[in-house]
């Protein structure tokens, strides 16, 4: 059977354009106006880098710098922890055969993807208050680890499924202990999946607003909450510059994650 050429359907072009406009026009506008020389956010006043300079040296710079440092620290830390947990989970899910509660465990790992984020946010806040945990960087960090796990798990588990268990068997046949078989054979083969999972978790953490906003505590900001805070006092063009920067970081990381995942696949 020949594949159907979708372009032959009536309205294909119109629907495509509509989707592209709805999805990307706002991003394009933000990106373009971040280079606006005018202080207005709607009128074009010529090309300039001045709002980028403003982000790094302007009156709001210390606030944004502190928020950025928080964001990257949390993202790196949470992504690392989530990746470690997700790797362990993937090994159990793909190599331990059948065990009691396997389906339940899988559901538990993926739960953060299904529970509405606002519910997680409220529940996390209530939980931290109940156990008397002072909200601050630490609570953000813990909450981020939790919701990053499924994002790290997916590429890692997908990668593991593509590695036949004959490699570990061959390793053990050649006198490697189960731990050596994991460390010397399985783990190196999983690296593309693990990197891909880490980058995805990193960007999800960097990007999170809702849960962060609930559990962050007074005076602690990450980039998304700092941007939101600024916008409440009126949108200035420096917000567009910082948003564009964040967009750039996201695109780079997601692309990297995808390329690494694909390179690993083709090597198999």
């Amino acid at each position: 059977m020949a594949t159907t050429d979708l372009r032959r359907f009536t309205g294909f072009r119109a629907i495509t354009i509509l989707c592209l406009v709805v999805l990307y026009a706002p991003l394009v506008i933000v990106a373009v106006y971040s280079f606006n020389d005018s202080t207005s956010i709607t009128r074009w006043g010529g090309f300039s880098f001045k709002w980028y300079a403003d982000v790094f040296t302007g009156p709001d710079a210390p606030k944004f710098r502190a928020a950025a440092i928080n964001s990257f620290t949390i993202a790196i830390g949470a992504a690392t922890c989530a990746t470690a947990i997700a790797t362990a989970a993937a090994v159990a899910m793909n190599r331990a055969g059948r065990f009691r509660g396997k389906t339940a465990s899988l559901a538990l790992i993926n739960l953060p993807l299904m529970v509405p984020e606002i519910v997680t946010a409220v529940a996390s806040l209530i939980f931290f208050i109940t156990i008397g945990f002072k909200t601050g960087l630490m609570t953000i960090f813990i909450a981020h680890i939790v919701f990053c796990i499924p994002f790290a798990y997916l590429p890692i588990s997908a990668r593991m499924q593509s590695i036949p268990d004959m490699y570990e068997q061959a390793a053990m046949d050649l006198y490697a202990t189960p731990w050596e078989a994991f460390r010397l054979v399985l783990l190196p083969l999983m690296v593309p999946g693990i990197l891909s999972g880490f980058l995805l978790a990193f960007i999800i953490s960097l990007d999170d607003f809702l849960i962060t906003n609930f559990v962050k505590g007074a005076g602690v900001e990450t980039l998304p909450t700092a941007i939101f805070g600024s916008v409440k006092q009126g949108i200035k063009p420096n917000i567009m510059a910082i948003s564009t920067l964040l967009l750039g970081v996201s695109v780079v990381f997601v692309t990297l994650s995808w390329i690494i995942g694909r390179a690993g696949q083709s090597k198999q």
Partner: protein
Amino acid sequence: MNQHSIAVDVDKVVKRYGSVTALHGVSMDIREGEFFTLLGPSGCGKTTLLRCIAGFEDVSEGSIRLHGEDIAPLPPHKRPVNTVFQQYALFPHMTVLENVAFGLLRRGWSAMDANGRAREVLALVQLSDFARRSPGQLSGGQQQRVALARALAPGPQVLLLDEPLSALDLKLRQAVRVELKQIQRETGIAFVFVTHDQEEALTMSDRIAVMSAGHVQQIGTPREIYEAPVNRFVADFIGETNLLEVEVGSVSDGMADIALPGGARLTCPAADGAQRGTGHLSIRPERITPAPAGAGSLQATVEDHVYLGTDIQLHMRLSDGEAMVVRMQNAAAAGIPERGTVLGLEVEAGAARLLAD
């Protein structure tokens, strides 16, 4: 202890997967230094048995002893056996040399000694120039030899080979057979070789265990298996044969008195367990000589012939309707019998064999 010391003693091994039984009390002795083949169709349990010896499967009942020591409590990494896997399972992130040295390093060799030994074994399989390559850059035949080198390097007491030639094309397979046999002879290690290819088994093995449906059907040298099959399964699975239903008059001292279709009587060797009544007679196609009509112990009509170059295969039918295949040498003098010709068939003394079932 007799002249052959036993390398692997498989004793009444049963393997169950839930309600499915893959091995029904299989027993065999694999001798020191021999090329031993587990032969059978897929699903006969041959690979399961190999995996039980390697330690990837636990046996449900019975025991496996390696040089007298029960290996049941040992996990795979503590068993002094190595495996050549069907898909080779070469570590893709390591070079050929690193692959071959892997087992030595795990056994505590120094890096220098391990690399030295790995190079020796690579030389044995003629891959010295490929030490620095990654397995992905090698051809199938070369990968197969790396897998062999990797398994041989640590000096296993027994080498297990799981259909290692099945991924190679025919020409290469035939060349590798000879090489493999040579390496086995040079190293003197007992090889346990799993295959479903009877030709492979016949050409390489010192002894063969024919398996089907989780049972050992027969254990013997290639010659014994081919010329003295015990039952219909073995006779039919190894090479080509004609199976005739015959009336057995009497069986005594391993010889049977048989009435052939058409009435002629024949005295022929009988397998252990053959009984009087209705039985099956196996006659190899190349052990029958066509003769003029009326001569010989069977009469048959030529239905078709297949020209095979060195041989001509005649498809014939006996008077009672049973089919019969005869192979005659393509001698210049003899012509090819026309369709419809009636020929007598002489069955050489000892060419026919009464089977146990």
